[in-house]
């Protein structure tokens, strides 16, 4: 098939699709009023993790490149069937590495975690290290976990930042998120999670990280830069 023939076929199909194109239903706007500017909602979709909101088109493009970012302004109420978060099995810290499905990265500058939790109920596994003061570092292997995350910054905002050379997304203030994960049973599971003190999301060396509870953006970035490689 010649190239021009292919182009023609595509254009004709595009035209055929017009017969199915719906008219926009403006009634949908009444069902969901516009949000205030300060209540940005970010839906983060990743084949493997994340996420983002951007303050400018350029920043959005940059994030999209790495995180496949989606930006929306309204998440809406949690749908029925969203479960309370499951923290995972508590594992003795000295047994963590043997129990985890990948090499766990720690923040050695903070010393030994108070607790370590392993999720083996989801495909690919997930590990959360619990440090003092509500600080938690959750991690998973990017290529193994299919996750969709939506985060609603209730107060504050979201912005793209960098950890050294790595792009990352910071969501300050209080936020509510929804994890959509593929369980080890092959089914889709949805869980909510609440964050009261900021979230930082980034990818590094095949891993995706979610740091919760660092407080300030500066502290989050500092801690992220201290995650072992």
């Amino acid at each position, binding site marked *: *098939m010649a*190239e021009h023939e*292919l*182009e*023609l*076929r*595509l*254009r*004709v*199909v*595009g*035209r*055929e*699709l*017009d017969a*199915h*194109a*719906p*008219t*926009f*239903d*403006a009634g*949908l*706007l*009444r069902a*969901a009023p*516009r*949000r205030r*500017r300060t209540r940005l909602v970010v*839906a983060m*979709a990743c*084949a493997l993790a994340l996420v983002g909101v951007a303050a400018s088109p350029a920043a*959005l*493009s*940059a994030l*999209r*490149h790495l995180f*496949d970012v*989606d*930006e*929306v*302004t*309204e998440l809406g109420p949690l749908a029925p069937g969203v479960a309370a978060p499951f923290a995972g099995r508590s594992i003795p810290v000295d047994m963590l590495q043997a129990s985890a499905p990948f090499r766990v990265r720690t923040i050695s500058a903070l010393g030994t975690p108070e607790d370590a939790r392993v999720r083996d109920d989801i495909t690919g596994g997930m590990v959360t290290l619990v440090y003092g003061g509500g600080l938690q570092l959750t991690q998973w292997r990017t290529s193994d976990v*299919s996750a*969709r995350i939506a985060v609603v910054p209730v107060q504050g905002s979201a912005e793209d930042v960098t950890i050294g050379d790595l792009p990352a997304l910071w969501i300050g203030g209080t936020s509510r998120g929804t994890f*959509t994960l*593929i369980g080890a049973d092959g089914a*889709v599971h949805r869980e909510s999670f609440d964050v009261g003190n900021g979230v930082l999301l980034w990818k590094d060396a095949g891993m995706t990280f979610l740091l919760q509870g660092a407080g300030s953006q500066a502290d989050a970035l500092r801690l992220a830069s201290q995650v072992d490689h």
Partner: protein
Amino acid sequence: MASDLSFELALPLSSREGETEFLARAKRGDHEAYANLVRPHERLAYRVAAAITGGGADAEEAMQNGFVKAYRSLHRFRVGAAFRPWLLRIVVNEAHNVLRAERRHTRLGARAAEQHRVAPAGPDEAVIAREEVETVLGALARLSEPDRLALALRYFAELPDTEAAGLVGTSTEAYRVRLARARKRLQAELEDVDG
């Protein structure tokens, strides 16, 4: 044929009459003004959504949701910027969301055909046209998402390369490279189907 289609599509899209006014009114919460603002873009948005999702109800959902989300984001739309690529980008994102949320990647080819089989039967020409839509959407569904998007923006939405490149967040040159590769892959897929 191609030039005729280009003209047909360019006509409503190039018409900015009233857009500024509709935009201003929509930002103040006027739903009717917003409906008027997006009406010239409905077909293109649906075409692109169909290329990504496989068409049918998924494409419609992506278009409708994308338009609603765009409405809610109007306060972030920069005055003076081009509305069409901004709107389409949101629809594209929504189409990806629909696709991924349902995790239909592996079933997309089958779905593309299924979505269009629900159309009522018609004269022979209509049947042939529908089969062609199924064939092409099915072949598109077997490509990667970036490939589908590149082809959709060029041939379904008929965007200029610079606009399409901006929409996908890459350089024009990189977009053209992607497009050329996508075309070859689609060509191979269709040749397999066509025998």
